[in-house]
Each structure stands twice: as structure tokens, then as C-alpha cells.
């Protein structure tokens, strides 16, 4: 392990040495590196400002620190008894007390002025050109483009998901951007003042991308505001920064900033397709999870009839991605998250109640409504799955048609 570390250390030093010329992976900002030790200058005016302020106080505290440490080390060396020092007996001097009260005060004043200015700019969301609403969930994000009518969920990517298990099939080191990648990133244009409206669906989260220069808590029932004007196209990564439960460490944020043209093309792609248009308008019958990302469903027409095997396969996948974090892969639950294996609700003769729980959630608990997030087929699959896995063996299946009827 140590040797592995050394190898990596050497590699990192090499990397630093060649950093000036090495082009970072396309789109990556290059700030995130092994041995990274400082804030990014980032890609917004705000991040630049916070960076400058950070460096300013950093140098000031270094100077103060140097003064104190040199003073102490010099005194203990110079006045050590072993060198024959004899103690003086003075114990008071009003003048020096005044000096070392006033000087620090003036230094603080000097820092407070730029800090106040930055704070004022950071809070000024006027004249924004677009608005994105960010909603935190345990443990994923939802993005809604208020003007474009696009909305989708964004959660940890599958590779990281696999690598973060105990005894994983792939080691974390082998995953690109382990824990910092998502299935659907937030796509935004550069040089546009974006206002973020941040809120939460359950507990408090905090939306943080260091290269934008800030984090902002998402509080259930309240909407916070923040803004960013990204100046360079690229991929900017961050994480949830407020403890939000078991998988707090596994809800990254990825922002992809594009040139205006590319962004418009992306928007067209999102809103062009028939299905996502339904999602965008919130059409009841559409039941698309949005973003056109999980669109396996045959649009509009008659729901298909699936075999038990198909439903179980579908359900197992959905369960692994959506439910296992709380209810555990073995269905035994954990802590406040109830076991589904053997649950009377899950194994009841009539699947209506369990369908209702899965689609509408249980208000006031961590059990969210999956009705808008999963399509008919996915819900049918997962309900079939939990009714038959782990010796639940009800033996029946729930078809997409039943889900559609229950909507």
C-alpha cells in the first residue's frame, strides 16, 4: 500500500512538472488533480473573487503566523535556562497592549472591506438571463430549466455505483471520475447569467461546484437563490456538501458548460422528441422520467404485456439503482428503512397498496414518490420484483397497464 502510494506520489510530481503543457482531458478543467491543495480560481467572476480573497487572507494569516512562531521560537531559544537566562520580572505595559489591540483591528478592517464587496456581489441575482431550479433528494438532484421546460434527474453514474460497493467488481481507481460523475449532467450555456433556485424535497442538502465559487444549502420548503456566469466551456464537478443521510457522499453534481450554439442544439434535442415534450409539459399520460434519458417506453400507444422474467429483470435493475440504498439489496432494510422481504404490504394479495406506496411515497418519511421518476414499465418491474424476490414469492406479476391505470 505504501509503495503504491509512493508510485502515485511520483506520478503526481511528474504530472505537476508537465502540467504547464499537458492538455487536460477534453472538457475537464484540470483543477482536480491528485495532491490538489488549493481552491480553484474557477470559471466565474465569483470564483475568481473568492479565490483572490482567499489568497489575500491566506498571505495575511501566514504573515501573522510567521510573526507569532518566530517570536515564540526565538524567545524559547534565546531565553532558555540552559543558556543561563535569568528571568526579568516585568508583567505589564499598557502601551504594547494598546498596540497589539489596534494593529490587528486595522488589519481586520482591511480584510473586511473586500470581503463585504464580494458578499454583496454574490447575492446580486438581478439581470439574470436564465433560471435553473435545483431540487435535492436523498440522494440525487433534479434540475428544472424554468424557461425551456426541461427537467430531469441526475444521479451517481453506474460505474461509480458499482465501484462503491463492498468487494466491488471494479476498483474505484479504475473508474473515471469516481464519485464525481452522474448519468445526466446539468447542461448550461457559457457567458449567461444563470440564476439558481435551490430547494429540497426531503432533508437539507447543499449544492456545491467549487469552480463556480460557492455552495448553497437546499432547504425543504424554502427556495434559496444564487447565481453564476460561467466564462469557459468545460465540465465542472462537485458534490453534495451537507450531510443528508446514508448516501450523502454519493450524490455528485456535474455541470457541463457549452458554447451558446451547442447549448441551443442540446435544448432542441431535449425538447424536440415527442416523449420529452410530454415530460416537459408535465403531461399526465406521458409518464416519462424526463430528459429523454430513460426513454425505453413505447410512446403513447397501448402498454405492452411483459413476461415475468422480463419484469423481474427490469425490476432488479431499477431496485438496484433506486431502492437498494435504503431497503438494501437483500431487501432486509436497515435502520429506519423497513425490510421489504416479508413485509405484509409488499406481499399482500392485492398489489394496489404497494403500488400506491411506490408511486406516491409516504409523506413525511424518506420514502419518496417514484411515480414521476420512473415510467410504467419500470414501476411494474420493480413492484413485480419486490413481490417475488427474497422468498416473497407472491407468484403474480404487475403489468405496465396496471401502473398506467393507477396513475
Amino acid at each position, binding site marked *: 500500500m505504501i509503495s503504491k502510494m509512493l508510485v*502515485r506520489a511520483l506520478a503526481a510530481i511528474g504530472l505537476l512538472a508537465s502540467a504547464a503543457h499537458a492538455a487536460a482531458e477534453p472538457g475537464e478543467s484540470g483543477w482536480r488533480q*491528485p495532491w490538489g*491543495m488549493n481552491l480553484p480560481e474557477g470559471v466565474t467572476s465569483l470564483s475568481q473573487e*473568492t479565490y483572490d480573497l482567499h489568497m489575500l487572507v491566506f498571505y495575511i494569516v501566514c504573515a501573522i503566523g510567521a510573526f507569532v512562531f518566530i517570536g515564540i521560537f526565538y524567545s524559547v531559544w534565546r531565553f532558555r535556562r540552559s543558556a543561563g537566562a535569568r528571568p526579568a520580572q516585568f508583567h505589564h505595559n499598557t502601551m504594547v497592549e494598546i498596540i497589539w489591540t489596534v494593529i490587528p483591528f486595522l488589519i481586520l478592517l482591511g480584510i473586511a472591506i473586500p470581503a463585504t464587496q464580494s*458578499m454583496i456581489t454574490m447575492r446580486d441575482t438581478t439581470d439574470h438571463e436564465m433560471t435553473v431550479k435545483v431540487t435535492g433528494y436523498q440522494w440525487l438532484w433534479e434540475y428544472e430549466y424554468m424557461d425551456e421546460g426541461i427537467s430531469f434527474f441526475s444521479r451517481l453514474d453506474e460505474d461509480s455505483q458499482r465501484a462503491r460497493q463492498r468487494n466491488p467488481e471494479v476498483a474505484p481507481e479504475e473508474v473515471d471520475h469516481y464519485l464525481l460523475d452522474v448519468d445526466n449532467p446539468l447542461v448550461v450555456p457559457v457567458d449567461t447569467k444563470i440564476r439558481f433556485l435551490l430547494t429540497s424535497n426531503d432533508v437539507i442538502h447543499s449544492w456545491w461546484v467549487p469552480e463556480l465559487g460557492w455552495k448553497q444549502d437546499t432547504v425543504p420548503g424554502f427556495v434559496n437563490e444564487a447565481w453564476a456566469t460561467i466564462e469557459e466551456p468545460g465540465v465542472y464537478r462537485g458534490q453534495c456538501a451537507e450531510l443528508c443521510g446514508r448516501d450523502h457522499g454519493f450524490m455528485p453534481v456535474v455541470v457541463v458548460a457549452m458554447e451558446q450554439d451547442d447549448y441551443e442544439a442540446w435544448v432542441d434535442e431535449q425538447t424536440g422528441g415527442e416523449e420529452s415534450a410530454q415530460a416537459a409539459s408535465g403531461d399526465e399520460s406521458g409518464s416519462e422520467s424526463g430528459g429523454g434519458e430513460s426513454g425505453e417506453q413505447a410512446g403513447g400507444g397501448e402498454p405492452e404485456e411483459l413476461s415475468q422474467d422480463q419484469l423481474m429483470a427490469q425490476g432488479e435493475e431499477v431496485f438496484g439503482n433506486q431502492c437498494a440504498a435504503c431497503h438494501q439489496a437483500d431487501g432486509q432494510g436497515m*435502520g429506519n428503512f423497513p425490510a421489504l422481504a416479508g413485509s405484509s404490504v409488499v406481499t399482500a394479495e392485492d398489489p394496489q397498496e404497494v403500488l400506491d406506496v411506490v408511486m406516491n411515497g409516504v409523506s413525511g418519511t424518506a420514502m419518496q414518490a417514484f411515480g414521476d421518476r420512473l415510467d410504467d414499465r419500470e414501476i411494474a418491474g420493480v413492484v413485480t420484483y419486490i413481490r417475488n424476490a427474497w422468498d416473497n414469492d407472491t407468484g403474480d406479476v404487475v403489468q405496465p397497464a396496471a401502473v398506467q391505470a393507477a396513475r
Partner: protein
Amino acid sequence: MSSTTHDTHHEHGDHHAPPYGITRWLFTTNHKDLGVLYMSFALLMFFVGGAMAMVIRAELFQPGLNVVDPYFFNQMTTMHALVMIFGAVMPGFTGLANWLVPVQIGAPDMALPRVNNWAFWLLPAGFVLLLATLFMPGGGPAGGWTMYPPLVLQMGDAFPFLIFAVHILGISSIMGSINIVATILNMRAPGMTLMKMPMFVWTWLITGFLIIAVMPVLAGAVTMLLTDQYFGTSFFNTAGGGDPVMFQHVFWFFGHPEVYILILPAFGIVSAIIPTFARKPLFGYSSMVYAVAAIAFLSFIVWAHHMFTVGMPLAGQLFFMFATMLIAVPTGVKIFNWMATLWRGSITFETPMLFALAFVILFTIGGLSGLMLALAPVDLQYHDTYFVVAHFHYVLVTGAVFAIMAAVYYWLPKWTGHMYDEKLAQWHFWLSVISVNVLFFPQHFLGLAGMPRRIPDYAVQFTEFNMISSIGGFVFGFSQLLFLWLVIKCVRGGEKASDQVWEGAQGLEWTLPSPAPYHSFETPPVVK
């Protein structure tokens, strides 16, 4: 053996020795016994909380899910904090106060000896309750020691046990503080005016008031959580018209003074030790007193600097930023005064002095990173990252904990009558001071490079510094076994300590024999 009257009859007898056996400790009202109990309890909790820290550092040694489940990891971070704050540092300081305040002000005992006994024995009760939650269905608290709703309300069946444990610990520290304040205000020997009191007594007087002021606030906050959970209130529930952020305001109104509760007595300790080993009086005694008072006052008006990201009004952010920055002034005064005390002294480097000097230097690092954190716009980057973790461990471990260790080495000869093993103690110091920096310094980098706190697993880019930090953590953790051994060894025997113990020591406690008799200053000493 005897009736109460018989006992009282002998209370002030010359040869009143401590009774033997378990009942001595259960029923004791003697301040020295209780001081020993408090400190032993603190030491035990230090190792319990330390074991949890080892679990945390083991999981973070490398990326991936290695040792424990993320939910259990969250329980560990939460419990580590609760145990260290309420179990180790606070009782450690209370124990020191019990032992030292009466002998430093020339009082025969604490003002309220029975309250003293009760305050102590509530502690083990509270901690049995708290630690038992780890074994209850749904596990222990996992929402962070700050207990923010709505997350904390997702806890399992153990939730009410957490709340009651906090209540009990709160009652215990309130009673302890009332006792200390009452003792200081009423029991000083003739001539011991307030401005002649040793700094340790001063800092505890102010700390006592802080505890009395804010512990009830914490109790109120957690009670509101309890009623929200079980009795249908909506203090913090938006759906019912409440506000989860209000909890944070109430919590930090307690929480910020709390961090000064954890550091002010340390200031007092260091202000006692540095003059002794510099053989020179404390520089600027009265400005030290005023600085502590100023810090205590400011601690009530800075709470929301823990909440710059929650979305409060701009004016709020600015106010709390300015107020927080102001704290740097009195804190600076203290550090400069210690420096001036060293200046032109005649300095020797026994273990207490080494810890005290390390305290001044490392606490300064924590203070300076605190100044950085005070700046609201940059705090939007620093907040909830490892930078914050590094900051508060510098002030709490190399600050509070180092001060307690300095105090133990400094007064241990007075308590036991034996000198501790100086050579081994120096080993303990050097191992600790080096490893603690290996442990916490890299965490500054991790935070700035973007690692959030309270996560059980991290992006591969953070591996190196985490490994270094974990290695430092293990060495630091195991070095503390040396401390345990040193204390045990000193209690059991060792070179006989003189009354004065340290050549340069000043104060009433050093006029007593070593070990100090079970009852001291039954006739008040006269302070010139």
C-alpha cells in the same frame, strides 16, 4: 458503621481520612474525589471517542467501501463528536475545576458538595443511554452531532434516547457550573479579590456563566425536535409552517458559546503553566481577564457564521462576518501576552511546558484558519469541507486536549505526590505533536481541493492526503496509550514530589503538601 450524627461530629476532625471501597466513590462529596472521578471518566471517554475516530480514519484510508457501512460511518462521526465534546473535554475541564478551584482560591471544598456528586453521577448515566443507542434497532444518531432536522428525525427507535441523553448531560453540566460559579463567588479566602484569582479560576468563572446560559437553549432545541417527532408540533417542519433553519439558529446559539466553553479553561491552564516554566509573572494579567470576558461576550453574537450557506439575508451574513472577525482581536491579545510572558524569561522544557508551547503555536494555526472561515464569501467555499474539520481539530485537539494534557502533567505530582516519568512523558509529547500534525494538517489541503466533510468515501484524487492523515491518526491514537500508562504509573508510585513541585510555580495549591490532603484549607489561608 456509624450514624449520621456520628459522622458530622467528626467532619472537621484532624484525621478524617477517606472511607474505603466503592461507596467512597458513589457517595463522595469531596471535591478532590469528584475531580478524580470526572477526570477518570473523561479519560475513558477520550478512548471511546478515540476508538470511533480510528474507525473513521480506517474507512478513509483509501477510496472504496472498506471497513464499515456508510450508515455506520455516519453514526461514528456523530458519536465521536458527542463523546469527545460532552464526554471527554467538558468533564475533563470540570474535573480540573473540581480539583483546582477550591485549592486555588483557598476554599475547603466546593460550595455545593452534594450537587457536585449528583452532577458527576448523571454523566455515566447519560452516556450509558447515549452509547446504548448504537445497539438499538436503527442504530445510533447518524445525522451529525449538530442534529439538524429533518435528517435527525429519520433516526430509528433510538431517537428519544438521544434526546434524553442530551438532556441528562446538559443538566449535569449546568449543575457542575452552578457549583463552580457559586464556589468562586462565595468561597474565596480573605484577601483573594477577584483580580487576584489565578487565570484558571477566572476562565472557569466565565465558562460557568456560558454553560448556564446556553445549555438550557440546547435542551430547548432538542425538546422541540422531540415534540416535532412524537407530538405533532411543527417547529422545524415546513409542511406545518415551521422552519428547519430555525433549529440551526437555536442550536448554534448554544453551539458557538459551547466552543468557547471548550477552550476558555484551556486559556486558563496555559496562563498558569507558561509563567511557571518561564519563571516570570504572566504578562498583562488584567488584559487577559478582559480578553476572556470579551471573547465570552462576542461568542453570543456570532452563531450564524456556522450557517453562511443556509440562505440568510445579506445583512445577516455581513453582521455575523464582522462580529466573528472581531473575536480575532481579544484572541490575538491572549497570544501576544503569552509571547510577552516568554520574553526575557528563564525557560525550561518539562512536559507541561512543551504541551503549553505546542498549544500556543497550534492553537494559533486553528485561530488563523478560523479568521479565514469568518469571511462569509470565501466560507461559501470552505463551509462543510475538510478545511473546517482541520480548523476545529486544531483548536479542539491541539487546543483543548493538549491543554488538558499539559494540566495533567503539571498538577499530577500535586495530586498523587509522585513525579511522573519525565522521559516517557517527553516521548508522549513528541509522538503526539508530530502525529497530530500529520493527522490534521493535510486536511486543510483536502478541504480546499474540494473534499466535503462527513463522507465515508471519496474521489480518487483525495487518496494521498487521506492516507497520510490516517497514518497520522493511528500513530496519534496509539500514542495516547502511553499517556494512560504514564498516569497509571504516576498514581502507583514514583519519585517523591516536593510541595512546590515546580521551581517557578506560584499559587495557593503549591503551599499544600504533595499529595494534597483529603481536606485542605479548613482554616482559610491569608492572601496578601
